């Protein structure tokens, strides 16, 4: 049983039944591809979390009690001066009215519709804070500003402290599974109209729905911006490497036949089109391109040496079948490790790549040779210019092997020493820092309000109508004060504030009554009164449960990183445990709380995935090489590129995000692959009893060129991802490109040096 014989027979059969092979392949490809129609449009950030994730459960819990947490916000900023100018207030008023018409809107809060209470003895008047804007005098405008800045639920919620920016907040009640396209389209349309109509007032759109929509929009813009340019790059690349138009065309055909069914399979599995999935075709494309170039370049050079076309492709297949299989296999195994993480979007991307690896292997050994026979392929007859260079490199390595090892070791040790400065962190708010519109929003909002995100906390009294109990309200107020004393928090709103305001208003507006009454019935009666005096969408249903056993704290956050967020979450839990007594709270809840935990759990999962993938790959290397010595030697070139890459990373940043971890899993199969090729050839040279010098030159001659070609394809492919507007995509691309580049250097310099010293068992 010789693999080469099997491959020879297999390929002969393929090329003698080329029409049947191609027809069958195309039918199967089309069948798989037809699944594309089932690809789903994503539901924003919710697609980034698994349903059973604890912090996501906390969010669902809060939403079940108080309605959905998603908001859409109009940000209004006059280009000069403050909010309290007639034309600015009029814009706010108009936007407020319009906001009620936003699809799925359930509440709207703004400066104009804020329910403001004025007191005249026993007469209580509750009305919109600002009305009849045309008739306001300058003094009245100033009064309004001073009053607004005294309202706890206005400042930092709908008006910035500086009075320079104001929000119109829309609460969206979008059913889970439906995206924000409609409300966002509505808001963007209004934004455009208002900016045209009012050149001196800047209006833009923010809020968690807008953030969420970025996922979808960057997926779209990545696809439309990157794919066409990437196609051009690949055409150029394959022509440079093959120097034959028809061979390039052939590789393009095989590449497309590999990508289409991969995305189709993703569709059959009802995957969502999120930014990570957008990069799957690019990774598949690079793998398929590398396969095609391996096979075609050898076939073409065989033809240059005078072989018949069929003989040339069969001989090429004999050399390339196993390497192509191994690349596909190790890539698939490496990438499959991403499934150990807990972000569905990344697992889906990884699985699409796994499909791609499988399809590209099958097509490369069937359709590729069949088509090769059918197309008029000629080589230009020029000799490969890289081969003499590789020969010279072989001479250099033979002479300076110890220097090479010493030099690379020193660099590696230096870079290793930097790695401990790295730490895992993430800033989900930086995801879309390349989306201009979003950055514009973020800058304004973060400067004036701390951040555009709210978080929440629930506090359960444990009994029906328990929240009117003065003890509960005081504890709630303590909780809010403690939260406000934390660096991460800008401001907090609770029903305790509502009670304090009511108590003041019911006592002739005297400041000394801005406190929580010691009378449960009175508190209950205040709530009762408040609730039937306010308009539609202004009630307290989003702050307390119908049976008044629980209430919700609304917290405006400062911007912070994952580590701070988790620390804040823990600190809050600790405070709750020590201070809340019999009252129950799950602590802080919300998107900025959830993401850091998702990352942490994901990173832990990915590290487990790495162990899984690496374990399997080591077994594969062992089986392929059937040698412990080579197995041990292979560890060096397989591990060093990653160590170096993280070392290089630490020269630029201290923060390792989970994308950096995903990069290891994607790259590992590709890196391992090159070393396997090199070691197999070296072993073969040993069997042929070549001297160590000749053995190394043999390796350079037969695998040096394919390794360079594959690495160049992969490097360019990954480098290309740097163009993505989604942070994790470009981090992933940059990191993978770096690893591939370093692996190429190690494979060409360090591995041969090591083999020269340790590789020859006969001596």
């Amino acid at each position, binding site marked *: 049983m010789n693999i080469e014989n099997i491959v020879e027979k297999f390929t002969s059969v393929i090329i003698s039944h080329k029409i049947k092979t191609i027809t069958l392949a195309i039918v199967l490809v089309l069948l798989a591809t037809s699944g594309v129609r089932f690809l789903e449009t994503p539901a924003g950030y919710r697609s980034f979390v698994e349903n059973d994730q604890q912090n996501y459960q906390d969010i669902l819990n809060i939403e*079940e009690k108080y*309605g959905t947490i998603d908001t859409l916000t109009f940000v209004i900023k006059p280009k000069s001066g403050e909010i309290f100018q007639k034309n600015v207030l009029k814009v706010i008023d108009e936007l407020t009215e319009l906001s*009620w*018409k*936003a*699809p799925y*809107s*359930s509440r709207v809060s703004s400066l104009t519709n804020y329910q403001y209470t004025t007191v005249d003895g*026993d*007469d*209580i*008047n*509750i*009305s*919109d804070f600002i009305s009849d804007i045309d008739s306001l005098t300058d003094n009245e405008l100033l009064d309004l500003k001073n009053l607004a800045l005294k309202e706890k639920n206005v400042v930092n919620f709908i008006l910035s402290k500086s009075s320079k920016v104001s929000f119109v907040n829309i609460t969206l*009640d979008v059913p889970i599974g439906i995206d924000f396209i409609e409300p966002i389209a509505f808001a963007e349309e209004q934004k455009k109209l208002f900016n045209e109509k009012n050149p001196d007032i800047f209006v833009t759109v923010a809020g968690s729905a807008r953030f969420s929509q970025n996922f979808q929009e960057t997926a779209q813009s990545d696809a439309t911006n990157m794919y066409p340019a990437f196609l051009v790059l690949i055409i150029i690349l394959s022509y440079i490497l093959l120097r034959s138009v028809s061979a390039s065309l052939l590789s393009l055909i095989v590449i497309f036949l590999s990508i289409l069914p991969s995305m189709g399979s993703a569709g059959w599995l009802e995957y969502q089109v999120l930014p990570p999935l957008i990069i799957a075709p690019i990774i598949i494309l690079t793998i398929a391109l590398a396969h095609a170039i391996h096979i075609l370049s050898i076939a073409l050079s065989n033809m240059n040496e005078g072989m018949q076309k069929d003989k040339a492709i069969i001989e090429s297949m004999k050399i390339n079948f196993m390497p192509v299989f191994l690349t596909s296999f190790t890539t698939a195994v490496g990438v499959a490790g991403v499934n150990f993480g807990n972000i569905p979007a990344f697992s889906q991307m990884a699985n699409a790549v796994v499909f791609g690896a499988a399809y590209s292997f099958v097509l490369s050994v069937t359709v590729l040779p069949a088509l090769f026979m059918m197309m008029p392929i000629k080589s230009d007859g020029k000799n490969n210019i890289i081969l003499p260079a590789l020969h010279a490199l072989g001479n250099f390595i033979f002479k300076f092997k110890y220097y090479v090892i010493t030099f690379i070791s020193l660099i590696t040790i230096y870079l290793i020493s930097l790695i401990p400065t790295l730490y895992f962190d993430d800033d989900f708010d930086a995801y879309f820092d390349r989306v201009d519109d979003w950055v514009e929003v973020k800058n304004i909002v973060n400067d004036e309000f701390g951040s555009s995100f709210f978080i929440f906390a629930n506090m359960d009294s444990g009994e*029906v*109508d328990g929240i*009117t109990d003065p003890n509960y309200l005081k504890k709630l107020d303590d909780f809010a004060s403690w939260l406000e004393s934390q660096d991460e928090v800008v401001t907090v709103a609770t029903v305790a504030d509502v009670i304090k305001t009511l108590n003041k208003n*019911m006592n002739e507006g005297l400041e000394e009554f801005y406190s929580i*009454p010691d*009378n*449960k*019935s*009175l*508190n*209950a*009666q*205040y709530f*009762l*009164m408040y*609730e*039937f*005096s*306010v*308009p*539609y*969408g*202004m*009630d307290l*249903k989003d702050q307390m449960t*119908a*049976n*008044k056993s629980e209430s919700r704290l609304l917290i405006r956050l400062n911007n912070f990183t994952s580590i701070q967020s988790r620390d804040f979450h823990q600190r809050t839990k600790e405070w709750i445990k020590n201070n809340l007594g019999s009252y129950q709270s799950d602590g802080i809840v919300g998107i900025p709380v959830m993401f850091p935990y998702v990352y942490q759990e994901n990173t832990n999962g990915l590290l487990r995935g790495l162990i899984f993938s690496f374990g399997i790959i080591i077994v594969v290397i062992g089986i392929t090489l059937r040698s412990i010595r080579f197995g041990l030697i292979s560890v060096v070139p397989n591990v060093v590129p990653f160590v170096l890459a993280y070392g290089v990373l630490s020269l630029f940043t201290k923060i390792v995000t989970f994308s950096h971890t995903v990069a290891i899993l994607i790259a590992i199969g590709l890196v391992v692959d090159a070393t396997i090729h090199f070691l197999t050839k070296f072993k073969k040279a040993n069997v042929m009893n070549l001297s160590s010098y000749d053995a190394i030159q043999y390796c350079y001659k037969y695998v040096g060129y394919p390794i360079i070609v594959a690495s160049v394809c992969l490097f360019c492919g990954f480098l290309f991802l740097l163009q993505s507007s989604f942070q994790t995509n470009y981090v992933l691309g940059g990191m993978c490109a770096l690893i591939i580049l370093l692996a190429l250097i190690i494979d060409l310099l360090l591995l041969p040096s090591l083999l020269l010293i340790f590789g020859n068992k006969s001596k």
Partner: protein
Amino acid sequence: MKIYSFLFILILTFNFSSFAETDEEIGLKIAKEAYESTRGYIDSTSEQLMILIDPKGNEVIREISGKNLENMDPDDGDKSLIFFNKPKDVEGTVMLSHTHVNDDDDQWLYLPALGRVKRISSSNKSGAFMGSEISFEDFSGLDYRKYDWKYLGEENYEGEVCYKLESYPKYENSGYTKRIGLTDELLRARKIEYYDRKGDLLKTIYFEDHKLYNDAIWFADTFRVVNHQNDNSTIYKWENRQLNIGLNKKDFEKSSLMRLAD
């Protein structure tokens, strides 16, 4: 009397078509007739039970009792007293309302825990009533004068032919953009769909358990409110409703609330 008014309506309906009035005019006529068919109660007392039901089926109970006084001045609204009984913490709270047709309502509230009467003026009462799916606006919305009307035709509902009427609130602070209601041939409202400010269906009130009081006036003793957007519902029941029992008009003045505070 009932039969006469029924016949009268039949004739009216017949006339609607024969005189080719506009749909708006027909709608207004039916709404007006329907409203007028509930007049003449003089005064009334009742106990009211509210059951708030969340999407998971959890229930919360509210109990109030009410007194109403008909205003014979056709240009002004009725007066009402609401006594809050349950939850226990609000027991003893009383609200007095003087509704007006063309003006904001007057409202006084006696809070026993505060021991004071407060006059509450707010131009907008479209919010939830005691956390339910019903609002003050829905009660005052039974007065045809607060809406513009349009007759949409006939529709079968639970085996009966009903007039389908569309109405649009005249006042700008309404929580709704329109309502579509079915009124049966006895001029009883059977259901009304409410559309929110973005024009989406918000909720439906089903009027059930119609009873003929004093052989003259139909009242629905159950309002079943279903919110289609948040899946909450409210069942609002009237019990022990009594009409024309000779209530003291003075009870419906601010001074009677003030006496409670003394």
